């Protein structure tokens, strides 16, 4: 029986060495993703979402990025312990990734078909014709006429390019798909098309997915579970239903309040003032305390530990520590 969780990340810490000091991009990050489950990873720019994804895929830029601590268990095995050649077998076959900007994710001097075939050839046996056929089929699956397989990326619109990227990612039917803000660069009508496609494919291929985004609307549409990231770590994790009905962490509350509501009438948005933390010198204790309206002295001394506040809903915040949650 597959383990309870397809992916388990324990206390992951990733730092970047730059000329301006070490950047604490990811600090004590914990997360689980179940089989066939879609987890939304939400956070503002600089919260460490993309770095986490690169940590999992071991695509951190050499020599600056380094995994300092933590384990990443994928199907029970710690990916961090694996050698480069072992990882090569996993990447693309079992874990695939979609990048944010479709404009630059495809090699401009290679035909679209060739880039899909390359993925298939790496992980599945078959003659040239078979692989070509599989690639054609994948194009059809993502809604692009197969006849366009010999065209080049610059002949496709942004939305179509993202479909090609999805075709590449899913061509070997990976267990886990990491999507790093796949629709942020797209117009809202095209975004709707792509999200609709991803939902359909997710169910058909039974792929579990990590959807990295900063748009709570997208999460509501496509995700089962949600993890809110701030200052390089998860501050709240819950099912979509319990998070959207009652967010606990002050930052999550602030996030929801900052989004103008289409239905109701608001004169002013009640806003989280201040700025996101500077990753080169993180605030002590809970990294949100400088901006937190319910700040308590302890918040600036110790960083809060996990507090379970509901079934599959926990939060890292001292507000709920004293109440001794159930």
């Amino acid at each position, binding site marked *: 029986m597959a383990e309870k969780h397809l992916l388990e990340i324990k206390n992951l810490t990733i730092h970047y060495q730059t000329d301006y000091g070490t950047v604490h991009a990811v600090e004590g990050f914990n997360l689980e993703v179940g089989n066939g489950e879609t987890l939304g990873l939400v956070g503002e720019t600089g919260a460490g979402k993309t770095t986490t994804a690169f940590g999992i895929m071991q695509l951190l830029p050499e020599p600056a990025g380094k995994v300092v601590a933590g384990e990443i268990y994928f199907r029970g095995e710690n990916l961090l312990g694996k050698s480069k050649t072992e990882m090569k077998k996993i990447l693309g076959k079992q874990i695939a990734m979609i990048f944010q900007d479709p404009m630059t994710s495809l090699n401009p001097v290679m035909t679209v078909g060739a880039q899909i075939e390359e993925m298939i050839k790496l992980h599945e046996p078959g003659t040239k014709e078979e692989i070509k056929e599989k690639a054609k089929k994948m194009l059809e699956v993502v809604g692009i006429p197969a006849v366009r397989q010999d065209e080049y990326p610059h002949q496709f619109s942004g939305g179509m390019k993202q479909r090609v990227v999805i075709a590449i990612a899913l061509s070997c039917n990976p267990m886990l798909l990491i999507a790093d803000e796949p629709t942020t660069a797209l117009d809202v*009508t*095209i975004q709707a098309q792509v999200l609709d496609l991803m939902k359909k494919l997710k169910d058909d291929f039974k792929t579990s997915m990590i959807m990295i985004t900063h748009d709570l609307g997208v999460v*509501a549409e496509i995700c089962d579970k949600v993890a809110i990231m701030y200052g390089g770590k998860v501050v709240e994790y819950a099912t979509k239903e319990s998070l959207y009905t009652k967010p606990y962490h002050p930052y999550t509350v602030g996030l929801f309040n900052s989004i103008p509501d289409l239905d109701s009438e608001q004169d002013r948005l009640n806003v989280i003032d201040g700025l996101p933390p500077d990753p080169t010198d993180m605030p002590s204790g809970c990294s949100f305390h400088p901006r937190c309206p319910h700040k308590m002295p302890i918040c600036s001394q110790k960083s809060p530990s996990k507090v379970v506040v509901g079934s599959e809903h926990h939060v890292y915040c001292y507000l709920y520590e004293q109440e001794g949650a159930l």
Partner: protein
Amino acid sequence: MNEKIIEVKELKKHFKTKSGMLHAVDGVNFFINRGETLGLVGESGCGKSTTGRVLLRLIQANSGEVLFHNENILEYSKPDMKKMRKNMQIVFQDPYSCLNPRLTVSEIIAEPLIINKVYKTKDELETRIDELIGRVGLSERLKTSYPHELDGGRRQRVGIARALALNPEFLVLDEPVSALDVCIQAQILNLLKDLQKELGLTYLFIAHNLSVVKHISDRIAVMYLGQIIELTDYKSIFKDPLHPYTQALLSAIPIPKLGVQKERLILRGDVPSPINPAEGCRFAGRCDYSKQNCFEETPKLIESEPGRWVACHYVRQLEQN
């Protein structure tokens, strides 16, 4: 209250490209009253930014009129235009390219004042700069720092302060918050609303994020391929959108709420190319309700109901075909 500050009539702007004439702005009409905010919404490539820039004559229009206090500024001579520029300014989208990296914050804000020789002595200039910096919520000590030392939100505040320097009546806001994170975005939106209330400013707010536009606008115009296809007050556009494209646009917005999932209208295909567009309604190709004459006759923007302008042959008679 509704004195028309600015009115645009049949505004056209075509760019010559290798493969034909690009109809960026193709016969746009609207007006904005004093103190009002008109939201201009549309997907990328629909011509909203170009419209904003043509208004300020940063780009020369091909034809049409831009009446500012009932005078067509497109015909103004260079010196008159320079005087006119004092009362219309612009705030940009990209925080990283809207400020000159080689100048300090106070120099950037002072630039329009120096160009138009508003103040005689340096002290008057300094006090005006301090006042503006305070006005947009920046701290005094940032006066001498450089743009690369500020984050996105603060850079936009400097951009706003610069736009306010000449006490304009009318501001074009070209996607001022699209590049910002949600929290910072909210802070800037609040600032813009406060400024409007306090200084009686009139805004043309250009954006592609509908929820942001709804929050700040009084009336909203939806643009598609260089034309305004619907213009109405912000409440009814969400409750009762008339044009099929507006309906599709609204249904595509992911709502950060549970159980409110509307039946989704997924548009077919991509936006057609604005180069040498065909006759007839430009949305006809992708519209589920398009009939024969939709492809022949271009619908005019008419006031089908009081305060509800729409450019469609079959308003309220849409049947699935």
